[in-house]
């Protein structure tokens, strides 16, 4: 199946802003994250089609996944 991955802020460094990817049916958000070399404890907001999900969320054909790093400074 085909999903669109959008990366924000530091996640774009040495990666990309937006990319369409081919992945097996039922791929979980966490697998995409791991495949991108993003450590799970860097994860802030995770959206699939603008809805908040967890790393265990299974993706479907045509989904758009958006990943934001944790930002907590003041």
């Amino acid at each position, binding site marked *: 199946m085909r999903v669109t991955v959008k990366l924000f802020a530091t996640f774009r460094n040495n990666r990309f802003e937006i990319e369409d990817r081919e992945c097996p049916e039922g791929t979980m958000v966490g697998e995409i994250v791991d495949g991108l070399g993003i450590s799970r*404890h860097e994860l802030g907001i995770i959206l699939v089609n603008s809805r908040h999900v967890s790393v265990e969320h299974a993706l479907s054909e045509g989904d758009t996944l958006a990943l934001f790093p944790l930002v907590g400074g003041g």
Partner: protein
Amino acid sequence: MEEVRAFLAKRAEGDLISWAVQTAAAREFRRSFAEIEEVILEAGLLPARYQRNRQMLSIEQQLRLFRSRVAVVGCGGLGGYVLEELARLGVGQIVGIDPDTFEEHNLNRQILSSPQRLAQAKVESAAARIAEINPAVIFHPVCEAFSSENGAELFTGASVVVDALDSIPVRLELEEVCAFLGLPLVHGAIAGWYGHIASVFPGDGAVRRIYNHWKEGKGAEQRLGNPSFTPAVVASLQVAEVSKILVGEGAPLRGRMLSIDLLHMEVVEVPL
């Protein structure tokens, strides 16, 4: 106070009262700048220092700001600018909460810091700055860390709380305390070129949603640090939100978060 009103009315230029007249009234009647400011605004006059506010704020709204109390949790990068802007806007009572003193690594961005103020309490510097820029503001410095134990006491009488903290777990605690007390919270956070803000009303749980996947430690700011401009941008947006909430104008950033990327100059709205 009738005498004070007469004194001011006689010296008003149009509906403006100059700082010189406000000062003379305070001296003549042995009243604080704050007391005189309240008389001015209640009489439908405007301290001249706020004349450039008036195209967006009516005198009634300026009086509402004057009678408001805002608590700012954290007086570092974000908090410094938030305090400066609230005081200039004319918010009458401000509580600044921070247990820390200035260190050298604060100098690149924290507007209340300077080489002379190293090792000084951040809230002490805030008190000096606010007294200098707007003596009519009553500032309450609290040189201690916010926690769920002291939250209710620190926020007594406050209409809005500003989250200018630098710790994710304490931000989560702050949201819980504000929800419990029924107070709106304006959340802001920064890391390097990036930042985000959101206005949170009791029961929204927006800060929890933003940090839903947090397990421990800090965010991207730990590696990136923070430059001079990111706190100024995010703090200014937070103050815009505070102003709107206090005067009841516009559409607050509720149920959504603005994620700001200054490196690519992109602003993305994230539903919360």
